């Protein structure tokens, strides 16, 4: 009788063990389906501008997703010792010694790939004789393209206004506002990003 009880206990234990293995196998399968290296949960991104170096800018950007539709992009960078002006509004500020830039862009993602943004950018150029400050405000349309895995590419363009302080080398048809020269601004950017 005791032997039979021991036998039954052993059998039940074996069954439990086997079922646990089966359950684990099932879970392992599910893990395989859902293991995407965290891509689907990624709500942060770091980005660099692809062509910024060409115009004398070296910024790095961070974008954080606040809700399903809203995100904010923050950026900061150094100004290099050269500056290439936009062709539509030549501004001669060469040669800058150094400087810095700050960038903020709240974004509304109206679908999975496209967004509208409001860009606020501040750039401070230290020249040998004086400093030049440029503040931009622009509305932006942008497109994000998933390359593969965590990598993305983003391009955007917009239209807005640029406010310049302490700079006289501008065309006569600019107008003044509160001590600033005001010119049109058409920011274009290409960025490569890593989602995490």
């Amino acid at each position: 009788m005791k032997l039979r009880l021991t036998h039954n206990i052993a059998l039940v234990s074996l069954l439990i063990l086997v079922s646990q293995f089966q359950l684990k196998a099932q879970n392992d399968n599910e893990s395989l389906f859902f293991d995407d290296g965290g891509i689907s949960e990624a709500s942060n991104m770091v980005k660099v501008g692809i062509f910024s170096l060409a115009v004398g800018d070296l910024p790095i950007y961070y974008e954080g997703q606040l809700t399903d539709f809203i995100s904010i992009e923050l950026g900061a960078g150094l100004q290099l010792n050269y500056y290439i002006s936009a062709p539509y509004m030549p501004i001669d500020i060469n040669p800058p010694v150094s400087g810095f830039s700050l960038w903020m862009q709240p974004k509304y993602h109206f679908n999975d790939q496209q967004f509208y943004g409001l860009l606020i950018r501040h750039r401070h150029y230290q020249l040998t004789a004086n400093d030049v400050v440029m503040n931009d405000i622009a509305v932006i349309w942008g497109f994000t393209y998933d390359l593969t895995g965590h990598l993305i590419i983003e391009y955007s363009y917009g239209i807005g206004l640029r406010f310049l302080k302490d700079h006289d080398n501008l065309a006569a048809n600019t107008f003044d506002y509160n001590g600033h020269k005001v010119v049109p601004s058409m920011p274009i950017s290409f960025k490569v990003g890593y989602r995490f």
Partner: protein
Amino acid sequence: MNKSTLILAFFVCYSFLSFGQSNNDNVEIEWGPVQEVSKKNFLIKVIGADETGIYTLSQSKRQYYINKLNPDKLSLTKSVLLETETNGKTRIVEDIYFLQNNIYAHTSFSNAKTKVNYLFAQSIDKTTLKTNPQLKKLAEINFAGFHNRNNGEFNFVVSNDSTKRLVFYNLPYEKGEKEKFGFHVFNQEYELIWEKKVTLPYKEELFEIKDYQLDNSGNLHLLGKVYRGKTKDKSKGVPNYSYIILTYNAESEEVREYPILPKGKYLTEMKIATDKKQDIICAGFYSNSSAERMKGSYFIKIDHATGDILTQEYKEFSDEFLKQNMTEKEEQKAQKKLDKGKDLELYQYDLNDIVFKEDGGYLLIGEQFYIHVSTTYTANGASSTTYYYHNNDIIVISMDENGIAEWSTMIAKRQVTTNDNGYYNSYTYTYSKGNLFFIFNDNRDNINYKQGDYIASYNKDKNSIVTLAVVDETGKYSRKPLFSAKDAEVRIVPTLSKQTSSNTMIIYGNKKKEERFAKITFID
């Protein structure tokens, strides 16, 4: 008080003699209570119903809820969030199905790392409304080498006898590549019977899958539209496309192809079905002049065993049918056209269903549907765009078992709403004991509508009514108001109604933050 108001008042008094229940000759209506819902919560579908309850799916923001209504009182008894998370990852809700009295959720997860899009099924407990946490993988689409968004799309159909289930999916492609798709056939327990991946000899942009059917033996029949050279309906004055039926057999690797050769005619709308003998039925409309117009009906029947074409019939609509709902003035205009030797044709009709009649014949049901876009400009240059959704007359064409047209009838209906995707437009119907019962929102001025009268347009007016149109087995049709929107306290959404048995239907209505269900029983 005009005549129609008096009639409506009489009708309302008559139909609401007892609270929550009304009778109208052919139908009995049982109303549930008006229930408050969040404005952000909207009904996606009535999933199904049995003696335990009526089950619905609703959405609020990005979350889905399974709801249960008391089958007698039609009041909400339970609402449970549909769990879509596994290992911290959220699956996409593809659809919820009521299959042989069980509820199943189909969800998918597209893995961006492995580049595989998975489709899962899981059962939902009808008492707790909780999903079974065990996921059954049904199919997967490998989209390696393609963009994350080009990850395919899953579709699902069930055989007529509900014993087989089909998951059908288009495979990712690059422009200029051949059309590719895959499918899996399951039994009622979601056990795989067979599967296949197919590459057709047609470029993806020159082939359009129009319809597909799973027969009771698990064979797939697919109806495709093949363009010649360019994706254009007309080229050098002749049709630039043809239709083809492809049959994939579960028992063998054999693929059968049945090209449909319309002899210079434009086959406009087409649908495919399988009858009780499992023979393949393909029916639709044709035109002599364009792909948007209709001159008559078309029918083809293929023997499922031999592949022989059993019947192929064209039947031109009679002038009487085409002029059926015209006013006197419209009829005079049409007659002038005929006198000049020009064709009368219907235009922009969708073929919505092929119904199998009890006598072995078929009914084709179609509706005129089009969207009209209007942009206006103000003096200061601002523009405003309005989308007009037109859902007009319903047509019914009856055929005998050999596809010979018996009769055609046209139910006068005009619905025009703006910027709402036609949410309250169109119709719902039930086929019961040889009769077709159509229910739709209507303008109250049509209460006394008689053939040849001007039909007033439904436009979501507060005083609108809901009309019942009954087409009998000889093609005669009658119409009567069922109830008014004012008395129902909601506007019904015909496309969200669901036939739940051979003679009952659940209808849904809403208004701002309120919703209401009703059960309609069709009496012989």
